């Protein structure tokens, strides 16, 4: 999911960088002081997650964890993921400095989307919550693969072909991240439910009932 330097054309790079800057600005604005440490921890988790590999056929893919980062951080996923990507590019030479913006969008935008789509269902009854958590983990990888395909289609031919290839390669990752997200949500619900999105609303709703 890390796109290397020199693969993409300038328009895609610039567009990616612009979206990444905007997202990061929104994320930083929405990041309250109390959650800076949390954002840092999730950034670190994201940074390390890419070292866990899942062999798939001729290639192999790695965990991304953008779903859980998005679910717990919302818009703050942008700065958290950007930070982790800068460090991955510097330390591991994954991706690259010029593709930083595009790579941030590929991984952080799905995180924010899934936060808004799945977040509201996390405090619902267990069955729905589990489904929402799984959808969040798997969906953010899926959307990331689609975005990666979209940014590659200008240089590597048809969108369907490239996106199909990336999605197929990431199917195991989707399953694994879905499960990880389910377990994380279940654990946090027991231990620290206020970390999950929509907690106040859920408490209010419960108080009303």
């Amino acid at each position, binding site marked *: 999911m890390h796109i290397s330097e020199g693969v993409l054309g300038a328009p895609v790079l610039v567009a990616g960088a612009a979206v990444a800057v905007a997202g990061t600005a929104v994320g930083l604005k929405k990041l309250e002081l109390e959650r*800076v440490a949390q954002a840092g921890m999730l950034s670190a988790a994201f940074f390390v997650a890419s070292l866990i590999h899942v062999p798939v056929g001729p290639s192999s893919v790695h965990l991304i964890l953008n779903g859980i980062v998005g679910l717990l951080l919302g818009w703050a996923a942008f700065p958290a993921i950007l930070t982790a990507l800068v460090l991955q590019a510097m330390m*591991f030479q994954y991706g690259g400095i010029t593709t930083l913006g595009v790579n941030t969008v590929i991984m952080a935008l799905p995180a924010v989307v899934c936060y808004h789509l799945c977040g509201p269902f996390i405090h619902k009854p267990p069955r729905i919550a589990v489904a929402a958590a799984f959808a969040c983990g798997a969906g953010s990888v899926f959307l990331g693969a689609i975005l990666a395909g979209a940014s590659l289609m200008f240089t590597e031919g048809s969108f369907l072909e490239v996106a199909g290839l990336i999605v197929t390669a990431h199917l195991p990752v989707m399953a694994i991240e879905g499960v990880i997200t389910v377990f994380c949500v279940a654990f946090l619900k027991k231990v620290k439910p206020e970390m999950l999105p929509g907690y106040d609303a859920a408490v209010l709703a419960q108080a009303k009932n």
Partner: protein
Amino acid sequence: MRRLLTGLAVTVLYSFVALPAAHAHKVTIFAWVEGDRVFTESKFSGGKMVKAGKVAVFDGSGNLLLEGQTDDNGSFDFKAPIIADLKIVLTAGMGHRNSWLLTAAELSEGEPTPLATNEARPEPASLDTPRETAPPLAGPGLTARDIEAIVSRQLEEKIKPLVQMVAASQEKGPTMRDIVGGIGYIIGLVGLGAYVRYRKDRRHS
């Protein structure tokens, strides 16, 4: 449901066990010269070979000279089309790409070997035994060019393992130092963020 969960748990565990297997977010290509041929080796970081990766060779001004595909061992070799700086670009799909610059100096060093052994030999045809078996006491009959050719060929042979070692060291995965260092950066940034915010808070209060 239970079986499904067990299956998923096994998958997750497997993915953790398979950790050092192969990475796929970085590819490397390494090229070296032997005689007049250029050999390349392409790997994903972690050591998995790039199969059917596209290799393109460009000259200094960016003109495409030739193209090819890596075989199952990630290697691809070609005869150097010109003696000039060559940029060898590997595209391994899904946005993976890397390049290697082969300088004209490297190429011209490799070049004279086959020329010297095949054409520029002053010995008579009757002495046309393979060079490897030629007795060393043939010393006085050799020209400086012959000696140069022999030395450079022998050197190439001897250097081969070294070249391969360098190739292997090109795609070392992230080390513990990188990982801990990265986490350290993040902790530092969190501290910096907290400091800035608290300072702002204190100034306001």
